[in-house]
């Protein structure tokens, strides 16, 4: 095979299980691509070549003994650096956790390994997953492999870039307000945010606990479904994980969309919607109609309140979750503090970056006595309204089709005001507030070749329908091609 890194995860697993390829040769080839592309793209914060080779050899040894290493046998996986990995430095992109070596694997990592997957390394992200560009990080510069002058999106930017560039066959991201779907869309890959509680978060560094969810990123819907089947399912170690078996998704992908009704919310089609994003949405509508679905308009009337509700609830939960970083138990500790109070405040000031501090302060504000009812409680009530909008829509339609981002990938370093940056997530946040599954799939490109995606939102726990719709779009439009940067052995 000429280029192993162009194979899908499903194909790799099939070849490795059938012993047409060894896990070791696949791993070596992906490690080489990761090492060659990383100076340009910055997808990885850490590559664990030795650990990956040991794991690959173990898979090959199991095959030699006649055992089945599992459905992801030999599949190279990249893991976002907010998900802990035993013995591998995990920083959440923050100076606060520089050099921290977790003593255990997150449940999702444990499940990937048990299914035969090979962890290649840890990927770049916005600090503690707070951001939409992967620029808000203490270390590293991660760029879009379709145009290195542009952002990859975020916060799971490194995971999207690794998959788009063939530096991993699969990746894990986390999605609190769009952080899987948005970078997937900007980098031309598939990103799947499962229903809240579908996937265990034991070992995911917490940002906003009522919103955070781990999910897969891949080059095809089938690969993402394969990974989701492996990582999903209740976990006694995460009290918020749903006591539900992992869904069976792969068969559903071939069922097509004939007879399904798909809703396009009118609030997600504002008059000033970017022309390329609008074109991708129209393309998806046409494709789904051709495939036998009925497409109609629906309304989610509280859509405009999703952004403000999110920017009360997520910072409030972040302020609470990040209180644990106090310079005492673990993480960065200020060297020159003379009182305990100063140790807390200085360690946190030195360890956190500006965006994280901003959100902690907003969260602290809205939780104050006197502000709590007007901001926090009101936001939670508005959240119930937003969920109510979806519940009403899903009495009329089986799935919802929407844009992922307001524009294709924008230039790096643009650094607009915080509020303008937050608007990048305007189409993705409501899904998290409502706890629903959302799948971003590539759906064409701009005239200059930047990928543009669309997302499919579904009823809680109905990943199956979401996957069917995504697969139908993918069948008609085709997965995005391999990103051009950096070309093997030089620039394109």
């Amino acid at each position, binding site marked *: 095979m000429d280029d192993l890194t162009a194979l899908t995860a499903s194909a790799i697993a099939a070849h490795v299980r059938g012993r047409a390829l060894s896990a070791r040769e696949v791993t070596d080839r992906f490690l080489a691509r990761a090492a060659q592309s990383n100076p340009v793209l910055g997808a990885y914060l850490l590559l664990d070549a030795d650990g990956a080779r040991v794991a690959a050899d173990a898979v090959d040894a199991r095959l030699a003994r006649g055992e089945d290493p599992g459905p992801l046998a030999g599949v190279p996986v990249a893991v976002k650096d907010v998900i802990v990995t035993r013995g591998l430095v995990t920083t959440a992109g923050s100076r606060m956790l520089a*050099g*921290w*070596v977790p*003593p255990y694997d997150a449940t999702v990592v444990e499940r990937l390994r048990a299914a035969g997957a090979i962890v290649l390394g840890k990927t770049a992200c916005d600090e503690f997953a707070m951001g939409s560009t992967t620029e808000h990080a203490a270390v590293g510069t991660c760029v879009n492999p379709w145009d290195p002058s542009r952002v990859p999106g975020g916060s799971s930017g490194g995971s999207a870039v690794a998959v788009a560039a063939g530096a991993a066959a699969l990746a894990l991201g986390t999605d609190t307000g769009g952080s899987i779907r948005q970078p997937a869309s900007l980098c031309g890959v598939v990103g799947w945010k499962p*229903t*809240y*509680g579908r996937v265990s978060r034991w070992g995911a560094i917490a940002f906003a606990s*009522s919103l955070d969810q781990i999910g897969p990123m891949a080059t095809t819907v089938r690969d993402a479904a394969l990974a989701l089947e492996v990582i999903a399912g*209740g976990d*006694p*170690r995460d*009290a*918020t*994980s*749903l*006591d539900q078996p992992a869904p069976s998704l792969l068969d559903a992908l071939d069922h097509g969309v004939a007879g399904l009704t798909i809703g396009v919310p009118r609030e997600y089609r504002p008059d000033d919607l970017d022309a390329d994003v609008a074109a991708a949405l129209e393309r998806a509508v046409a494709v789904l109609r051709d495939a036998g679905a009925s497409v109609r308009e629906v309304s989610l009337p*509280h859509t*405009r*309140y999703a*952004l*403000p*509700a999110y*920017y*009360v609830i997520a910072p409030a939960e972040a302020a609470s979750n990040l*209180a644990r970083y*106090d310079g005492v138990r*673990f993480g960065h500790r200020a060297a020159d503090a003379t009182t305990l*109070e100063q140790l*807390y*405040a200085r360690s*946190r*000031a030195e360890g*956190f970056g500006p965006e994280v*501090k*901003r959100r*902690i*302060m*907003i969260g*602290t*504000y*809205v939780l*104050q006595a006197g502000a709590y009812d007007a*901001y926090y*409680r*009101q*936001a*939670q*009530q*508005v*959240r*119930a*309204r937003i*969920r109510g909008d979806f519940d009403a829509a899903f009495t009329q339609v089986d799935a919802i089709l929407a844009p992922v981002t307001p524009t294709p990938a924008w230039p790096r370093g643009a650094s607009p*005001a*915080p*509020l303008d940056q*937050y608007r990048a997530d305007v189409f993705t946040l409501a899904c*998290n507030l409502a*706890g629903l599954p959302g799948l971003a799939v590539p759906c064409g490109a701009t005239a200059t070749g930047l990928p543009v995606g669309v997302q499919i939102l579904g009823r*809680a726990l109905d990943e199956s329908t979401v996957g069917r719709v995504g697969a139908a779009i993918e069948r008609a439009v085709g997965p995005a091609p391999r990103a051009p940067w950096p070309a093997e052995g030089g620039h394109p």
Partner: protein
Amino acid sequence: MAKVLAADEVRALAHLARLEIEPRDVERLAHELGEILDHVACLGEVDTAGVEPMTHAVAMTLRLRDDVPGPCLPPLDGGVVVPAIIGGD
């Protein structure tokens, strides 16, 4: 005109959040935080009378696990041996 927090309010918040801030950052934060709070103030427009606050994404009862011992760290002299987690040594 966007909301701007008072300098004292910014300093009080920073204290509550246990974040040391530089005097030069106070004015910038007063504007940034004010702008964000201004934006979220529109939540007040929504009629939420009688709406139960949604505290979690799905209505669920937190699951309990069986009270059985799992793998433990190795004991030593009345304590336990923990792996190095900082700096690798």
